[in-house]
């Protein structure tokens, strides 16, 4: 049974790596952010599987923390850092740093 859990965990890690393609490719910021969101869920799933397979109940608490805090980054993204045409986002000195 343990080896089954570990195999599934490996497969989930592979799906995470596949999802990286969307982060690298984009094209928009929200695509990248959503992929990161999916990684969070995948990490929760891997943690739960490993907790069962390795007999380490403390990992479930790690999963709990991930599940609970997942919204913080999305909230920060939507409110503060969505690149694009926010009115208060002044594009001051846009190309100054390219010498």
């Amino acid at each position, binding site marked *: 049974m343990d*080896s089954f859990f570990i195999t599934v965990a490996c497969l989930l890690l592979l799906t995470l790596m596949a999802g990286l393609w969307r*982060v*690298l490719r984009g094209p928009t910021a929200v695509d990248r952010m959503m992929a990161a969101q999916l990684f*969070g869920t995948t990490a929760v799933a891997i943690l739960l599987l490993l907790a069962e397979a390795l007999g380490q109940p403390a990992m479930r608490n790690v999963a709990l*923390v991930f599940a609970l805090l997942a919204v913080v980054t999305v909230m920060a993204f939507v409110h503060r850092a969505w690149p694009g045409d926010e009115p208060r986002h002044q594009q001051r000195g846009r190309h100054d740093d390219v010498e």
Partner: protein
Amino acid sequence: MGAAMTEAGLFLLDLLLVLTLLCLAWWSLAATDLFKGIVLFIAFGLVLALAWVRLDAPDVALAEAAIGAGLTGALLLTTLSKLASSIDNPPAKRSSPVLLWVLLVMLAAVLGYAIMSLPQQAQGLADTVASQMGNSGVEHPVTAVLLNFRGYDTLLEMAVLLLALIAAWSLAPRAATSCEMDEALTVSPIVLALFRMLIPLMILVAAYLLWVGAHAPGGAFQAGSVLAAAGVLALLCGKRLEGRLAGWPLRLGLVLGTAMFVAVAAAVMVGGAHLLQYPLASAGKLILLIEAAATFSIGLTLAMLFSGQRPSRGPAS
């Protein structure tokens, strides 16, 4: 499906994890667009938490999870939005001179050699800690090291947190009166209500982690980080923590952890003990007291560091 297969599966998992970590680190640094780099860095934190779990370090995994998911991402994304220009494409780089490569190769050789030459089995201080656990007042070794055996380090670390906040405040402008929320965006009240509902749950989990730290992975730092995440979410939902707590309540909350630590450390000296040498009978209670105060202060300090604004002197009018 035997033990051998489990071993092989775990080894494959380790290889995949290590490979993903290195790729994420590299892509995050070399990303053409800074936002992409930050998202990859957030993913890096997630995978790193899995690595801690594989290394039997659930305490570290908890801290990484709380900080990585609750703080780092929000901090970096907020900073990116405040920069004069968030464009760095292609990444401005200095031409890498031969000297740099010589340095890197030498460092790789030295570090690699140092690690390979260490014995495969080493007890480190594990036995020493295990033999002293009876005198620590708690049952979880990491908590015993943090709050008892190496209490000095933790005390100084609380001071470092305070110093970081003082330095950040000395740089930051005073809190503006305008709301930080993006005016162009109307968030449905349902979503806001949902997120506000999560805040008390986070505080509850922080308390749970604090309590469980006495005998299992958890403790003040993990609990404090979760508390900080609750604060960050509150700030992002438009609550103005620094406005409500401005003045002495905020400052008292910030120094509470360090003050309680120093007070307990000094108070035990009245009984003839050394600094930070808790009497055995009450060690557990004293540690919980210090940890509770430290959790509160760590949470508040990190949340204030995220807010990045110096609060006004008096309470909000």
